[in-house]
Structure formats: C-alpha cells, structure tokens
C-alpha cells in the first residue's frame, strides 16, 4: 500500500494494477487501473454494482489528466513582475503562513477564509474543516457543494431527518416500474446509471429534450423556474385522483394536511398555465407513478439550483411521501448527488455550518464531542460562517476575508455572477490555490500549491448512495507534488499547531474521522480501511458496535431519522425565480452540463478526446428564437443578462422551448455561462439560481472569411 504525501520523496513499492474509482461524478464507477508513467496508464471498467462493467467517455479517458501537459509540478509564487514563478515548498509554505499570520493579527481570524470542494476525499474534507477551525480559527469555510446538492440536503434533512442522496443502493432502481427524473439529465451526467433504469418507464421533467428526456415514456417540459408549481400540481392530482397512500401518510408522516391544502390551489389547468406542461400529461405522470407498484422520484440540479430550490426539492419529496414511496421497500425518493465526493464532502466539516458526522455547528453536544476528539475546548470552535456565494461575494470587502485558500474548486468558472466573483478574488490580499492543473482560479493565485490527484493517492469517498469507497494509488505522484493532507499539516505547524493534530497519512486521518463521526448522523465509526479493503459493502450509518455493524444500505425501512420516526411534509408554495423576464431580457437562460465535461472543465478540457468531442461552449436555442435575433445555425451570439454576457455559437434545436436558451457551464473566459447567471440565493440552502436568469440573445457580427 502506498502512502503518498508524507513519503512522497520515497518511491513506493511498484504497483502495476489497482481497483479504484473514476475521479469524476458521484456514481463513482469502479475501475481497474494499470500501467505506469513509462508505459502510460489505462483504465478499464470494473464489475462494480453501480456501473457493472460500464464507463462513459470521461471514465475511459480519465488517466489522460495524469499526463496533462500543463500539470502543476512545483509550487508557484507570484513574483514582483506579476508572474507565477517556481519555488520550493518551504518558501511557498513559509510565505503563506507568514502572510496568514499577519492578516489574522491585523484583522482577526475571520480575515482568512477557506473554499473546499466536493471532489476532495473524505480525509481531505475532514482535515480541511479541522484546519480551518483550529489552525486558522476561522468561521469562514464553505465549499462548492453548496452549488450542487445543498438544496436537496436541506429538504432531505427537513423531511427525513437525515440527508443521504440515495437512501437505497442504485441497483434497487432495476425493480422500479416507473421512475420520475426531475431536473436530472443522467444520460449525460452519469451514463452508466442509466442501465439501472432500462426496465422502468421514465418520466423526465426537464425544460429541454435532453438525451435522458429522449428515452422517456413521458417528457414534461416546464418553463424554467416553475418546477415547484409542477410538483405542487402533481401532488394535487395525487390527492384528487385518489392515488394517495393514506395508510402510509397516516402511519409514517406528519404535516400532510397543510402541504395538501397548499397544493389544492394548483389544479392541473392552472399548473399548465404557469409551467406550460399540458394538464393531461400531468395526470398521466401521476397515474404512472401511483399505479406503478414500484416507483421512484429522483431529483437533480435542475430542481435544486434555484432561489426556491429547497422548496422545490421538498415539493417532490411531498409527492413521494403522498404516494407512500420513501422507506416502503418498493420505491423511494432520492437526490442524484453530482460531484465525486459530493456526499462525503458535505458530511465532514467543510460546510459553513457543520462539524464532522453531519453534526450541526450550533449544537452544544456536537461541539463538545468534536472538540473532545480534537483535544480542544468547545469554545475554541468558531461558529457558523457564510455560505459559498456569500463568502465569495464578501472577499476583499470591508468586513470580508482578506485571504482565501482554495482546495479542489474552480469558482472563477463555476460560481454564479462569475465576473463579480473574479473581481472579488482579485481584490484579495492573498489567494492560495491547491490544485493539480492550472485552473482559471489557480491562474489568479498569489501562491499555487501542486497536489496529488486521484490515481496518485489513497483515501475514501462516499458515493451518491452513501456507500464508502476506497480510492487507491496506482502511481507515485510527481516528485514535487504533495498530498493536500501534507500541505494542511505543514501549514498548520507553521501556524503554531502541534504536528500530532494533523495526521497526513489518509488511513490515520480516517481513524480520526471515525471517532469524530461517532454518534453523528453520518456515523462512520464502524468502518475501517481493513473492512473496505476486504470488499465489504458499507453504507453509512455504520456505528462501531460490539457485533460488527453491517452498514445501512437502505434507510427508513422501519423509521425515519426524526426522533418520532416520522417523515415530514413541508408546506411549500411556488414563488418563482428572483428575476422575471422583461422586454429587455425576454428569454429564460438556463445552464447545465454536457457528457464530455465535468464541472468547470478544468480536468476534462485537458483530455484531448473529450475536448474534441465538446471543444467549445454553445447556446442551444429554438430556430425561431435564433431567427428573431438574426442568427442561423452556428452563428456567433451573445447571451446577456443584467449581470453580464457570454459569447458562443448557437446550436439550433427545434425541441427547445422557444422561450428558453441553454448554455453548458464548463468553459472559461468569454464562454462562461456563469457570466449571466443570477446570484440570488435560496434562503435555506444558500444555493444560487443557476437554472434560470432573464436574458436576451444577440447576434455578434463576424468578419466574413
């Protein structure tokens, strides 16, 4: 077993083949890696339950990121001439520590902020949270998962008392007769998941006729920003058409009356007038779900990324509860987590309001427990800080942080209102970015720290079904590349922390994480590297019991996680997007993903095959809408909102709603979709409104060739 990081300078024992997982999405397909830096590394799909021998193009080509030509291999420090220059680790870390100390001394601990990522292993996410709260003493830590799963997390916690993306293994979907996918384009975002759905009849809710929608028995194509009205309408129909599971509602839930009363205002014809989804199609959808015998309701980013995202997720949960699905053993509700470790990354303390084990930072007992594990007094732990966008927005301002440490994220591309975020990043006294490629954010940094990537490191991730997975190293990292764990340890020591408080070997960090999570909602205390390495299938919660706990593949079969064991309906109503269309901005601009790219594209744009498949951004639009702006297919165009504009070529698609345009968000520079997105936040989750902005489309004059 290799231990990268601490012993990076010592070559590990040669390994020629390992079982690990794809570096990208939350499905975490099992892969076999073989080869080395000499002959090259190849990935093959493994017969793992989520992918069963399948991989998408991103997974097959993932090893190419290991040899990215511009891989970061030495620490970089911005010199007096404004250019990033190579330097030694000691110089870089001394500089960072010295400046952090000075800023803290002058402006207090909250002058230093941390921005993490849903791609970080559990160990990194855990140690990053501990580092922020102890070594920096700051409350200002959040992560890019706030932009992904936070709305469903908030809704899931409220409804079920716990947030685990899928409270069942994905294989259970094979037994479903009907699956409703709301705002989830799985055929592009997690293709191998789709084979679990090939027996079910699909209902797809998406403003676009996506690759997933094309496979659906029924495609509901709502106006962007009206998904909650649709969810309310579906609940209405379930009530009126007698498809409720009344016995389940009575035995296992609370709050049905208020939620149903709210839904009564949303009769099908009214929902049609708001969403554009025909009343008859709404009825058909509920009939398919209600009479299926086995049905699932799954939601994705399309539901969550709204200023009413939490309520929208709650609207779909209400529907699932009314039909008696969650915890029934014959169906359920699930959130399709996006990022590779989007699940584990939100459980172990890099979220502004949380401590490890999914413990609330405001809970005295939770603070006492974690403080005990960390060997500090509970009062030494700072309180909750700003959520991701609020944090980015505050950078460099009068009361905002002066320094930011970024681990595993590229907010210059992925955050909403991107031009403003870039301006905030530029206003910092100190920006430090740890990454393995020069992302757009790294290029702005004062100090860049080269860290290990997927096939060079050990660790654990928690996939979308709450299952703990082992990431294993095939290769030693390049000589001057260090693990994030070691970077955090060495920085902490420079900031005056005892080295013993920051283990840099993943297995040792995990042992501490186990203790910190003990008794929490996401209890990992019964899980060990040994158990995982013997191939045990362990889903949390897995407490450390006298008799080995088998883990919990299926939650809620007996009871929900609220103290009384009941699930909660939520009384929600449609509010609509923060910004309405107007004569100046007459179209709904929505954003999303394409198959070939992952997140901000920092990795996948460096893979030749993927870059060839999707080389540049595009604006997907109905031919009529393009024509009205004087645009033909492939014409160069600008999408403008009240925030700013991006430029790309149009791609005509007659299946688009004429009132909507779509732009993928994976691309940098002028092609950033997030130049037009709206930073309106969901009041409960802090999720920005990526999925709907009021925009206009203009042709950009081109020189004739």
């Amino acid at each position: 077993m290799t231990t990268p990081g601490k012993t990076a300078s010592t070559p590990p024992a040669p390994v020629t083949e390992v079982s690990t997982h794809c570096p990208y999405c939350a499905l975490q397909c099992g892969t076999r890696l073989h080869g080395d830096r000499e002959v090259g590394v190849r990935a093959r799909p493994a017969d793992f339950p989520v992918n069963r021998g399948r991989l998408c193009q991103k997974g097959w080509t993932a090893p190419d990121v290991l040899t990215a030509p511009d891989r970061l291999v030495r620490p970089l420090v911005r010199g007096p001439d404004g250019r990033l220059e190579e330097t030694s680790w000691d110089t870089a870390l001394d500089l960072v520590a010295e400046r952090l100390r000075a800023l803290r001394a002058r402006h207090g601990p909250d002058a230093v902020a941390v921005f993490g990522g849903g791609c970080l292993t559990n160990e990194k996410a855990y140690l990053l949270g501990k580092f922020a709260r102890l070594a920096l003493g700051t409350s200002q830590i959040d992560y890019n998962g706030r932009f992904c799963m936070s709305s469903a997390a908030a809704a899931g916690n409220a409804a079920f008392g716990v947030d685990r993306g899928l409270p069942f293994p994905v294989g259970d979907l094979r037994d479903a007769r009907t699956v409703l996918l709301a705002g989830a384009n799985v055929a592009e975002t997690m293709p191998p998941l789709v084979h679990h759905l090939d027996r079910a009849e699909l209902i797809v809710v998406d403003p676009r006729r996506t690759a997933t929608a094309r496979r659906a028995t029924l495609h509901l194509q709502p106006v962007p920003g009206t998904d909650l009205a649709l969810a309310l309408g579906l609940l209405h129909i379930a009530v009126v058409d007698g498809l409720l599971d009344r016995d389940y509602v009575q035995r296992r839930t609370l709050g049905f009356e208020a939620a149903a009363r709210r839904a009564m205002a949303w009769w099908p014809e009214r929902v049609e007038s708001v969403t554009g989804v025909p009343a008859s199609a709404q009825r058909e959808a509920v009939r398919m779900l209600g009479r299926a015998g086995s049905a699932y309701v799954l939601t994705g980013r399309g539901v969550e990324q709204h200023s009413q995202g939490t309520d929208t997720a709650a609207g779909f949960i209400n529907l699932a509860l009314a039909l008696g699905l969650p915890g029934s053993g014959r169906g359920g509700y699930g959130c399709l987590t996006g990022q590779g470790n989007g699940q584990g990354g939100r459980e172990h303390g890099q979220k502004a309001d949380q401590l490890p084990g999914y413990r609330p930072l405001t809970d005295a007992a939770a603070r006492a427990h974690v403080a005990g594990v960390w060997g500090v007094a509970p009062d030494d732990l700072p309180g909750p800080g700003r959520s991701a966008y609020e944090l980015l927005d505050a950078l460099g301002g009068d009361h905002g942080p002066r320094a930011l440490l970024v681990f595993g994220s590229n907010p210059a591309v992925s955050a909403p209102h991107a031009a403003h975020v870039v301006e905030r990043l530029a206003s910092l006294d100190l920006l430090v970015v740890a990454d393995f490629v020069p992302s757009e954010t790294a290029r702005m940094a004062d100090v860049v720290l080269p860290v290990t990537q997927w096939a060079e490191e050990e660790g654990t991730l928690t996939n979308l079904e709450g299952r703990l997975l082992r990431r294993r190293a095939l290769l030693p990292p390049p000589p001057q590349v260090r693990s994030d764990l070691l970077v955090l340890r060495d920085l902490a020591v420079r900031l005056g922390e005892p080295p013993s408080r920051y283990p840099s070997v993943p297995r040792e960090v995990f042992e501490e994480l186990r203790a910190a999570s003990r008794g929490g909602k996401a209890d990992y205390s019964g899980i060990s590297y040994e158990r995982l390495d013997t191939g045990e299938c362990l889903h949390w919660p897995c407490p450390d019991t006298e008799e080995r706990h088998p883990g919990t593949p299926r939650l809620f079969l007996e009871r929900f996680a609220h103290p009384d064991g009941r699930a909660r309906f939520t009384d929600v109503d449609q509010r609509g997007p923060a910004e309405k269309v107007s004569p100046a901005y007459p179209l709904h601009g929505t954003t999303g993903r394409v198959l070939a790219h992952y997140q901000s594209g920092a990795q996948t744009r460096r893979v030749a095959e993927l870059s060839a498949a999707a080389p540049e951004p595009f604006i997907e639009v109905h031919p009529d809408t393009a024509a009205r702006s004087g645009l033909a297919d492939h014409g160069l165009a600008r999408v403008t909102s009240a925030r700013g504009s991006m430029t790309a070529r149009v791609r005509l698609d007659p299946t688009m709603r004429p009132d909507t345009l779509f732009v993928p968000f994976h691309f940098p520079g002028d092609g950033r979709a997030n130049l037009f997105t709206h930073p309106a936040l969901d009041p409960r989750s802090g999720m920005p409104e990526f999925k709907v902005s009021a925009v206009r489309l203009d042709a950009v004059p081109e020189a004739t060739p």
Partner: protein
Amino acid sequence: MSGILVVGDGPAAHRLAERLRGHGHTGPLTVLGAEPAHHRPLLTDVVAGRLPAEAVRLPPLPDTRVSTGTVVTGIDRARHEVRARQGGTETVHSYDTLVLATGARPVVPDIVGATGGDGHLAAGVTTLRTASDCARITGETVVVLGGGPLGVETASALAARGTDTTLICAHPHPLHERLGETCAALLTETLEQAGVTMLGGRTVVRRTPDRVLLDDGTNLRADTLVLCTGAAPDVRLARAAGLRVRTGIVVDDRLRTSDPHIHALGDCAELNGRAPGGVDTAWAQADALAAILTGHATVHRPTPTVFRLRTRFADVSCVGDPADFDRPGARTVTLTDQANRRHARLALRDEHLVAAVLFGVPEAIAALGIAHRYGRPVPSDLLGLLLGPPARPAPVGSETDEDALVCLCNNVRRPALVKAWQSGARTVTALAGATRATTGCGGCGPLVARLCDDWEHEARPAPERAR
C-alpha cells in the same frame, strides 16, 4: 399603519389579504365574509366525489382577523365605517381603506317551481357557487341547465361520479358562441360519449319535485336541477353606498372605485368596461392591489387571459372573443380532425395570437397559452405544434445518416464502427473493445448488434456500400 378592511369571502379577498402581508402591510387587516373562502374551480371536483368539501377550503390567513358568518349590511362612507350582522348581533367596523370583493351572484332564470314562496330556491334546485351548494346536489338523476363553462364542468363531474346526467342548453351545443359550430359540436359528442345526455336548443320552463319540463314538451326526471345560468357582479353594497356602478363596480387602473378610499376587485369589479370574472382575473387583481396599497406598484395592467375548460373529458381553450376572428388584417388557420376530435382555429397578426379556439390538442393548448400570456410569438411551425410531436423522435444513429452518432456515452459515430469492422472487429464485443461503443449506458447495444448483423449478411462490406 392604516387599517385595511376587506369585504368578501372568495379567492380575491383571500389572495389580497395574503399578498398584503407578503408585501409587508403591518397595519390592521380584517376580512369580513359569510363563508370560509374556498377554491371555486374545485367545486366540480367535490361534485364528482373526488374531494370532500372541506378539502377545497383555502389555507388559514396568518396575522389577519377573519370574521366568517358575517353579512355586511351597509357602508357609511362619511364615517369610514362598515355595518354588519354576525349571528343576531350588529357590528361596526371602521376602515382607512375598504376593499370590496363581494364577488358575483348566480343568475336564477324564471322557471316555474324553481323558487319557493320566499324567493329562495326550492329544495331539489341549486346553483353552484359555494362549497355548501355541492351537498345540495343529490339523487341519481340530475339535470344541469346552462351551456356555459360551469354547466359543462358540472355535467362532466356528475357523469364522472356515475350520476345519470342531462345537460340542457339554449344553443345547439354548449359553449356554442365561444367555440363556434364545429368545435361546439365536438364538445357535445365528447360529453355524450362521457355519458352525459345532451339536449341542446332547449330550456327548462317548469319544475316540479323530481321532474322538469322543457320548452319542447320533454318531461325529464330530475332529483336535482342545477342552475348554471351565469352570475352577475354583486353590486348591492356599492350601489347602496352611492358608488359608481354599471355592470360591476366601476374601478380605475388603481382598482379604485368612485370613492378614493374604497377599492374593488374580482368578480364584482368592472375595469375598462369589462367584468370578466373568474379566478385568474381575481388573483391578478389581488396581486396588483396588494402591491398598490403597499406602495410597490402604482397601477394594475391586466395581462392577456386564456379561457381553459376544466373537464378531463376534453382539452378545450380559447383566446380572445369570437369577433376577433373577423378583425381586419388577421390571418386565420383552421384545422379539423373530426375522427380524432381535434380542432384548432387561430387568428394571427404578426406572429401573435389574436384569437384561438383549441380542442383536443393538449400540447398546443399548453404552448399557445403560455405564448399568449407572455405576449410571445407563436411557433413558426404552427401545424407541427397543432398536430403534436412525433410519437417518438428517431433514436440516435438512424439508418439513413452515415455519420450518425451511435453511442452518445462514448461519442462513437458510425464511421468509427465501420472502420473497426474493416479491421476485423466482427462481433459486438469486438466492436466495443475497438470503439467503446455500448460500454456506457448500454442503450445502443441493440443498434450495434443490428449493424453487426447487417454487415455480416451483406455481400459487400459496409464501407464500400457507404461509398
């Protein structure tokens, strides 16, 4: 903060109170009404037996004094007071701003035997305006009188619950004027198929217990006679108070009556010479008035409305008035598919909808409804929209396209498979090994197998054919 007093128990009053609080009105807020507010469009779901009457009650209003069982008897404009009777007690309520949301009253036609000596409806006769009316519809045989939307919706609901139902209307078909002959006839056909006995071109002249007599001499059993014969704005209070009244209480674009301290909205109000009624109008006016009264808006600008029938037996919608079809400069598109009971008649000007009658085309009803409400142009492929999308779009990798994308998950196009075949990959597994096709979601597996099979059985190898 000044006190707002709302008179009314319908959706307009409820929505106004809710939105006033939403807009931050912190002063006193009182709603005086006879019954608890309920969703009037859902009464037919109660009639159909799909919902109990209490289920259609509107949610409680937070921070609002709601006084039900209260009948307002008069307005003293000089004193800014409203007099009311609650039970046997007279009460007086003062206001800074008064809002009349008194709604409309059902029109009761002159039918012998329909009303009792006291002028109230006789037992076995009812209108359908309040939740309590639903329980008045009893028996196995019901006659519905009225060819408007409520008549059609009520008859549909009764048929759906298995009641022997007859719909009687003055025109040959229900909604005749609005839909036109062809479309209204389709509606008659559809309702008949749903089990409603349709008697057009007739009316009820006499009612005796359990029976009705029509003007053509027909005598029908009727355990209940439901009068869906329209409603008129309830202007009694306004008129008695000396406010300006025509069909409805006349209001300006601030929804103000002739007394600047009194506003009116919903079914009782007449704006720009029209009192269209209906919950969509009531809600839009309530949203606007709440914004106006809290200083968030200055005027109410009505948005285009769409009529949508609420019956699950037929998808029907209308835009504009029948007269709009005859306006100069309008381009008309008509499509009738008698066999499949589909009909569309559209009047367009500059790509925008002026008027429309749509029947049995649910996708078009949804799409054109949204386009009209937001003032958007209609799609250029109007016929495509009316005829509906193709049952299923062709799957990726259709036979005809030589460069078709076969495997989305791994971005494999047909030429790559051809090339692999040429190089000796002659099975699905071998093609997958060479190109990764089929290894993502697996959805293209059958297609690749078929291509494999086709090529195997061709005399000449695929690429030569391709050239």
